[in-house]
């Protein structure tokens, strides 16, 4: 049951990815002069670098899974 659920999640992820890719062909994106809001550093993915690094360190030491945003493994003998 869990395996089936996981396989649905993985398939869903790739379906989203492909859909986003295909949809891009039909008009996703902006022209250079429409980047006023996106140019704000707060709109960048991973803009809170320090907070994210500290969060990842806390959760790495308390949970069995890590990463996703960036590289996930090693670097701490955390108790």
């Amino acid at each position: 049951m869990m395996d089936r659920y996981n396989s649905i999640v993985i398939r869903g992820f790739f379906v989203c990815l492909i859909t986003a890719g295909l949809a891009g062909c039909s008009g996703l994106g902006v022209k250079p002069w429409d980047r006023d809001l996106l140019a704000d550093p707060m709109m960048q993915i991973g803009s809170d670098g320090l907070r994210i690094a500290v969060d990842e360190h806390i959760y790495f030491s308390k949970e069995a899974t890590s990463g996703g945003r960036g590289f996930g493994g090693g670097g701490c003998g955390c108790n």
Partner: protein
Amino acid sequence: MQLKPNRDLKRVLAAASASLLALNSAQAQDAWEVDAEILYYQEQDDRVQDVSFKSLAKGTIRDDDQLTLSLQYDTLTGASPTGAATQNATQTFTSASGGGNVVVPANELPLDDAFRDNRTALSGHYQHTLANGARFSNGLTFSKEYDYLHLGVNTAYAFDFNNNNRTLSVGLSLGNDTVESVGGNPVPNTFVSSDGGTKFTTNEESKTVFDFLIGFTQIINRRSLVQFNYSATVFEGYLNDPYKFISVLDDDGSLAAAGGGQGGLYRYENRPDSRTGHNFYVEYKYRFDRSIANLAYRFHTDDWGINSHTVESRYRWLIDAKQWLEPNIRIYSQSAADFYTPFVFDSNLPSQSSSDYRLNEFNGVTVGLSYKRKLSKNNAIGFSVESYRTTGADASIASPTGDIVTAKSTDLTASIFRLNYSFKF
């Protein structure tokens, strides 16, 4: 040939945008941004406490090249779960952290209060922008604890296409960690001495960690963008926690007696010596007029049988040009590792087992609130408060003779406080 007016307008605007970007780039020359943070992390019942300092400095070196340096220093104290199960009688065992004998009252979670460590972590990362606008970066990572050393290298390449509306990035990372625990690394599956007797140990143990990541970012429209990442991580080598051991029970569920009447019987854990995991990650950002919403989801699956789902959301309310307030929530859920067991039976000892509560099935919820305020053009101060709580599943396991033995889950409640300051020069 005369161009159509709207095409002329587009050209003029594009040229103006390019000039503005060039101006911004010139202003960014030799500019450094530094973020520094003090963190206080406290678990309930005087369990782990961490006071940590972390700083991240990002500088534009020449042209569009960027150097990022980070430093973190943690001081960890408190008590950490040993892995032994709660019993309805007093338990005595030798601290795996070198703290002598530990006596645990009946019905209390066995903790090792000799846990104490300092951790220093350094990293450097250089990003070079190529003539076509693609970014090529390389980094080094290092961290040292009393009993643990990490060394790592990483590299990544990212380029934009489709009029800079899409970014594709690929990265690799390789790490080598060595552990030399207090009193030696215990030989897996050997019994813990309860009277300071012989501890069978090995010398330094190590593991390698290899990461691969591929990411795709798409700008959707003027207000939103989305990122998809896939990453794989392979661990090889010593993956045990040298300070964790497991209660060994008789078939009736009571703690087995160690030889010579020396208290209860415990056995050091033994995990598989390799692990391959996969992460699927998606993050979406939307800019409202006065706020920014962020939603992320991660699915993890690996060959230890652990699957996890993580949903995280942040909503940044831009109070005015100088300050923002941001509530956040994170919901986490994981299944147990195949070899997780809260205890083992003396009459049927498994070859691989761990009672580390972090490998059990559990759910975690984090809620928090952050605030940041610009003090001047180049200075800002902020703070955040968070609560992190995990609740696991109690286990009921049938003994070899059919008796049902139950073990309560090891839950966690932690408070996290941060104070940060950022400046540019």
